[in-house]
């Protein structure tokens, strides 16, 4: 992850390695890397940030808070009908009892995909996302393309994810304009009756909990 060999942005991170050894520009950090470094140096010098706090935040989102948390919740909802009913009734309380509410996940509503309805989540105004249970949002979720298009052309967007929704099925797009965070409960993969909750969780993908994907099927179980 060193920035010293990159000077690109999110959308172009594949084609600069051939610059190694030349003195054109590849040895300099990218412009945003320099600006972030300058801000960090300034804020640290002034005593406004504690470097340990920065490391703790990065470690938390890099290593602990991610979609594996949401997957546990979904797997349990597949396995336990009473839990599912409670989750649909008051996800904030149920997820709080499991210890997974938190920053950008203070208020959670769970919505279930069924044979009749497919749910998909967006934040058109910024990039609101249930951080406490899914972690940092992926780049596509924060992209202008997703934010602008999924409300006006959800079926076209979903087909780019490889998801073709039957015209008779309703698509519900949830635009997260407030502090309510939405968790999609995808439909349970077929032929998984024998699986444990832990095995079920390994089928639940991040995208399936945003509504842009489906859970893995049995053959894909690791």
């Amino acid at each position, binding site marked *: 992850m*060193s920035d010293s060999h990159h000077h690109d*942005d*999110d*959308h172009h*991170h594949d084609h600069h390695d051939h610059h190694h050894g030349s003195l054109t520009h590849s040895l300099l950090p990218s412009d945003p*890397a320099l600006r*972030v*470094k*300058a*801000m960090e140096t*300034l*804020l640290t*010098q*002034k*005593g*406004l*940030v*504690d470097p340990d*706090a920065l*490391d*703790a*935040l*990065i470690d938390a*989102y890099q290593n602990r808070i*991610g979609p594996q948390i949401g997957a546990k919740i979904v797997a349990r909802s597949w396995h336990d009908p009473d839990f599912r009913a409670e989750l649909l009734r008051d996800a904030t309380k149920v997820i709080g009892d499991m210890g997974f*509410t*938190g*920053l950008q996940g*203070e*208020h959670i509503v769970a919505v279930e995909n069924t044979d009749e309805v497919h749910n998909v989540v967006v934040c*058109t*105004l*910024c*990039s609101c996302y249930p951080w*406490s249970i899914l972690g*940092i949002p*992926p*780049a*596509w979720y*924060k992209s*202008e*393309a997703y*934010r*602008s*298009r999924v*409300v*006006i052309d959800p079926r076209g*967007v979903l087909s*780019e994810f490889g998801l073709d929704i039957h*015209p008779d*099925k*309703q*698509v*519900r*797009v949830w*635009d997260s*304009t*407030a*502090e*309510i965070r939405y968790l999609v409960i995808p439909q349970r993969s077929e032929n998984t009756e024998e699986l444990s909750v832990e095995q079920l969780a390994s089928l639940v993908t991040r995208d399936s909990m945003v509504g842009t994907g489906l859970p893995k099927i049995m053959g894909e179980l690791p």
Partner: protein
Amino acid sequence: MNSIHDMGGMHGFGPIPLEEDEPVFHHDWEARAMALRMAMGAWGKWNLDAGRHANERLSPQQYLTLSYYERWITSLADLSVEAGLLSMDEIRTGKASGQHDLGRAPINAEGVLGVLRNGRPSSRAVDALPRFQIGDVVRAVNESPEGHTRLPRYARGRRGKVVLHHGGHLFPDTHAHFLGECPQHLYTIEFSSRDLWGSRANERDTVMIDLWDSYLEPA
């Protein structure tokens, strides 16, 4: 404010940029930018809504040129100067004029982990009864406030149906401008995609938007 951040329904941004096995951060500086922004927020000099509004206040040209974390670090500079935590001179030179005089240490590792755990709930008690009930047909007001608002342009003036009531939540339009929490009832309104976008939309499809009481009128 009517600016580029309010992009729901726009055309022309191209295909969704999908990536296999995407890392949490693409570069170290993205992670540092995220952490700096969050750690600085802990001084309590601005709130979540003011922070969002700082991103919106970037010019449309700048907003579209900057990547997600570049917006964060750019607006962090604006917020820090406005809050008096940094001077323009310090931003220009990159050198601190001395230590801050806030009389306490910055948030430490234990502190930030506490923030992640506890979050900052936006729910608040509201004395007034909700004006609308589940099932009511409402219309989103057609207003164009110059300040922060969470009523997307694509829903303004459109009719929808109340499907969820979330109780009272602090009101971003005042909170972002340090004019108080002024909590209001918050609802989810279901809009027909046909009503929003016209005949090309599938007649079954809907868009659900979380809207505060004063964004709505009876219809």
